[in-house]
């Protein structure tokens, strides 16, 4: 179901781009044509530089923290000077890649198909990426990083948005998202939620399981009625919210002090809070959860394709992938990374090889007017509608 949904999203995005929008005769899903771009045939010598667009924390050269540096070894090893640009949002990543000034990008699921169908990234010749063979099979050739079995990137890592609570105050231990949507919650005023319009999907996911009559099949594809139900649920929740969080330091401190005792979180936040001696637990509730998955992709206009490939190979090498995964707080993509992490429990903590765990995760996808679950008889709410609704939810 999810795969169909994401493919449908990609199809509609192509139509949006206006290039061969009718797509008849194309090889892609729904007869959609992917721009014909050849993958690199063989690896040459490095061009001496590589330009990267990445999420914060993915490309560290020691300037943030002296002990966190996997860029310098790469530069010494390959002679490719790294020029990194940190992007704040997926939208920004797409815009930057369209300029053609960058060689590689760490795209999330809500950006990758836009890049593929927009012709901004090239298929990846995985034979040239030696470490690709060690990437978890559960991450390879997925709907957000491949088309027709053609790989468009090297999986990097993934994570779920969890339910975190303080074990000393929240009793009995919650097992459902219902704990944060209960209007009569005993923890009213100390409940927290992620401060982003995409959080509407969390409410939709909860309604998908608790109100089947709404017919929600994908939390990122909501028609008027489903959207309104999710927004109403969140408006009701607002009365019990103490604060919304968007940067993780804020959430760690709130849970430590007890200003927040239950709410959405990431595994990395739970770890940091525990390291700070806060009695917290983070679980994947019975309804499943929203989450994210990132992929390194190479530009179709790359000026330094060889260095780009060297980077993609290096960043998923066991050692580097382990370093990034630990610094960022995510499940690594390379199975050998699990032996390289400083914390030997890292992969277990982040469920790196637990496919049944990730089967319950709905990776972030940008909502579009054309329903991403494949429905064509209704119009769904697009992301700008989600943003405006988020404003009214917060009041």
């Amino acid at each position, binding site marked *: 179901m999810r795969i169909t949904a994401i493919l449908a999203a990609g199809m509609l995005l192509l139509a949006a781009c206006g290039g061969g929008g009718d797509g008849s005769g194309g090889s892609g899903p729904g007869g959609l044509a992917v721009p014909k771009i050849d993958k690199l045939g063989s690896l040459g010598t490095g061009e001496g530089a590589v330009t990267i667009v990445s999420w914060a924390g993915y490309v560290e050269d020691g300037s943030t923290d002296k002990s966190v540096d996997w860029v310098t070894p790469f530069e010494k090893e390959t002679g490719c000077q790294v020029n990194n640009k940190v992007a704040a949002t997926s939208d920004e990543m*797409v815009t930057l890649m369209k300029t053609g000034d960058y060689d590689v990008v760490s795209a999330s699921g809500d950006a990758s198909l836009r890049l593929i169908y927009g012709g901004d990234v090239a298929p990846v010749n995985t034979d040239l990426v030696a470490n690709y063979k060690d990437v978890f099979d559960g991450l390879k050739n997925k709907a957000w990083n491949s088309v027709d079995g053609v790989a468009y990137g090297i999986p990097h890592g993934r994570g779920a948005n969890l339910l975190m609570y303080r074990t000393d105050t929240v009793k009995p231990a919650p097992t459902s998202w219902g704990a944060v949507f209960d209007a009569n919650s005993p923890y009213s005023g100390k409940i927290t939620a992620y401060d982003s*319009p995409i959080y509407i999907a969390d409410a939709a996911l909860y309604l998908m399981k608790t109100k089947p009559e709404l017919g929600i099949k994908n939390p990122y594809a909501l028609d008027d009625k489903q959207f309104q139900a999710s927004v109403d649920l969140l408006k009701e929740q*607002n009365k019990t919210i103490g604060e919304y969080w968007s940067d993780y330091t804020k959430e760690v401190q*709130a849970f430590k002090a*007890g*200003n927040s005792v239950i709410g959405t979180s990431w595994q990395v936040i739970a770890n940091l809070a525990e390291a700070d001696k806060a009695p917290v637990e983070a679980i994947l509730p019975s309804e499943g959860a929203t989450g994210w998955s990132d992929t390194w992709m190479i530009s179709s206009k790359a000026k330094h394709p060889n260095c780009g490939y060297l980077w993609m190979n290096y960043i998923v090498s066991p050692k580097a992938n382990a370093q990034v995964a630990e610094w960022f707080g995510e499940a690594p993509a390379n199975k050998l990374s699990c032996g390289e992490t400083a914390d030997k429990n890292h992969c277990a903590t982040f469920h790196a090889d637990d496919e049944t765990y990730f089967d319950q995760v709905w990776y972030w996808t940008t909502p579009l007017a054309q329903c991403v679950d494949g429905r064509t008889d209704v119009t769904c709410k697009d992301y700008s509608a989600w943003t405006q609704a988020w*404003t*009214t939810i917060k009041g």
Partner: protein
Amino acid sequence: MTSLGSYLHRHPRLRLAGLLSAPLLWLVVAYLGALAVLLVSAFWTVNGFTGGVVRQFSLANFRTILSEEVYRAVTLRSLGVAAAVTVICIVLAVPMAFFMAKVASARSRHWLVIAILTPLWASYLVKAYAWRILLANGGPVDTLLGGPGNGPGYGLFATVLVLSYLWLPYMILPIYAGLERLPDSLLEASADLGARAGRTFRAVVVPILIPSTFAGSIFTFSLSLGDYITVQIVGGKTQLIGNLVYANIGAANNLPFAAAIATIPVLIMVIYLVAVRRSGALEEL
């Protein structure tokens, strides 16, 4: 070089143009130009399908802002916060500035000015996060008030408190500058003529204070009106105009709608500036 110098010496207008061209260029292009782009783009929309900006005149953004109740509520809340911060700053700044300008010795005066300026050297973010820890559940403020949960916690009150703390120097300095220009002899003359302290304050000090206070209020009011970081850090679930602008730029990539929201504080400040102009505040800046 000398020939150019003498040429300019003979043509004073050209000399003036050369002197002023750089600041004028800055003012017109970078400053007014940016403001004009802001105003124009507020009338554009974003194509929800491609995320591209549609450069076509439309009142849709303003219609949304005027018809949705939430924007009115947030505007009023932001105005309330800005007014409260300004009043608190005035109440704290007037006695402090008076002491600095009229009571303290000339030597300690300089040290006091430095002390007032010191917080401005520290990063805004560090100060805001420090307040977040001070106001935390069971934190120092709670302890002072008798235990966890007794303090204000995070929310609207905390926002006003922290903004007042952050902008206080901007209120003290213009008032201090105004009072310093008030000759001591005037106060003595008033006393010699038989006026009591209250009368002297009303007749001599207040006329100096009013324009200075308005000058300070322009800072505290406009800075509070546009703030979004402090609210995010200590405001709990509160949102002000700044947060709405930020959400529409950062998350939604909807620049035109953010621009439309941003015209609200611009409008409020224009009205405010026109109103305080009559008090002579602008001469005090």
